[in-house]
C-alpha cells in the first residue's frame, strides 16, 4: 500500500486575470523510502502539489491519503497532529522563527509531539549538521546554508515518515547544497520518503526517481 497517495487532485488560483487552473485531476502515489524529485518549468504546480501533500493548502477537489488516513477529511486539530507526527517540511526560504535561537527553532517541532528525547535528539542533529557553534544564535546571524540546515534539523526532529522539500538547495551554494542532499540521502536510506521539487536537473539526477509535473499529470521520466 502506498505511503502517500494523491487521487484526482485539482487546484486553481484566482488571479487578476481570472481563474488559473494549476493542477487538474492529478493522480500520484509513492511507496515508503527513496528520494523522489518533481521537476517542471516555473509555475507548473510543483510547489502547489507539495503544499497539498503536506496538508498546508486544500485542493479544490480530490483526496490525499497518507499512511492510510485521508488527510483532507480530518478536522484542523487532527490534520495538525498528523503533520507533526508524519511529515517534515523544508522550504526554499527556510521559514525559521526570527527571534528564537537555533535550538529553540528546532525544538519547536516537539511542542506537539512531546517526545521525551527531543532535546537530546536536537543536540544530535545540531552536531551532525555542523551547527554546534550556532546553537544559541538567532537565524538572522546565520548564512543561508546554515539556515537551511536548521530547517532540515527541525523537519527531521520528530522522525517523520515523509520529508517534503521545496527547492531545498535553491538558495544555497554548491557546498551547502551538497550537505543538504547528503542528509536527505541518509534519511531516505533509513527508510524515509523524500518528495522534493527542484528546477536543477543536477539535483534531480541524484534522486531515485524523477517526475515531470504538468497541469494534468505527474509522470515518471528518466534523466
Amino acid at each position, binding site marked *: 500500500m502506498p505511503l502517500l497517495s494523491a487521487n484526482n487532485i485539482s487546484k486553481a488560483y484566482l488571479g487578476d486575470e481570472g481563474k488559473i487552473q494549476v493542477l487538474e485531476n492529478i493522480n500520484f502515489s509513492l511507496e515508503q523510502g527513496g528520494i523522489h524529485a518533481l521537476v517542471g518549468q516555473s509555475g507548473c504546480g510543483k*510547489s502547489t502539489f507539495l*503544499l*497539498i501533500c*503536506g496538508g*498546508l*493548502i*486544500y485542493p479544490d477537489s480530490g483526496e490525499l491519503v497518507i499512511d492510510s488516513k485521508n488527510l483532507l477529511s480530518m478536522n*484542523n*486539530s487532527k490534520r*495538525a*497532529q498528523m*503533520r*507533526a*507526527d508524519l511529515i517534515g*517540511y523544508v*522550504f526554499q*526560504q527556510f*521559514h*525559521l*522563527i526570527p527571534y528564537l535561537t537555533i535550538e529553540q527553532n528546532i525544538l*519547536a*517541532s516537539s*511542542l*506537539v*509531539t512531546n517526545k521525551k528525547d527531543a532535546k537530546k535528539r536536537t543536540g544530535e542533529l545540531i552536531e551532525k549538521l555542523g551547527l554546534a557553534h550556532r546553537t544559541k544564535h538567532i537565524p538572522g546571524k546565520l548564512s543561508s546554508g546554515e539556515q537551511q540546515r536548521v530547517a532540515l534539523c*527541525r523537519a527531521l526532529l*520528530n522522525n517523520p515518515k515523509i520529508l517534503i522539500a521545496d527547492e531545498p538547495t535553491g538558495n544555497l551554494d554548491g557546498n551547502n547544497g551538497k550537505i543538504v542532499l547528503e542528509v536527505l540521502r541518509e534519511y531516505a536510506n533509513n527508510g524515509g520518503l523524500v518528495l522534493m521539487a527542484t528546477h536543477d536537473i543536477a539535483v534531480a539526477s541524484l534522486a531515485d526517481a524523477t517526475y515531470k509535473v504538468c497541469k494534468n499529470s505527474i509522470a515518471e521520466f528518466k534523466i
Partner: protein
Amino acid sequence: MYANNVKERRAEIAILRTIGLSTKHIYFLFIFKAFLLALIASVLGSICGIILGVSLDNLGYESIDYYLQLTGIAVLCSCLISILASWLPAKIAASQDPGVILNEG
C-alpha cells in the same frame, strides 16, 4: 496593538501550523501572551499610579483617593479587553491555509 501584532506574525503562525501546532495551540499562545502583557501592564500601572498619588499627597497637593476594589476591576477589565482584542485576529490568521500565507513570501 494586538491586532497589529497578529497581522505582523501571520508568517510565524503559518510556520507554527506547518510544524504541527493546531489552531487551538495558536489561540492559546496568542491569548496567553495578550493576557500576560495586560496583567503585567495594568498591575504595574496601578502600582505606579498609587505611588504617584501618595507622593503628591505627601508633598501637600490635593489628596487623591484610591480604592483597591476599583483597581482590581480595572486590572480585570484590561485583561478581558486584551484577550478579546487578540482572539479575533488570531482566529483570522489561524483559519487561513498556512501554505497560502507562506507562499506570499
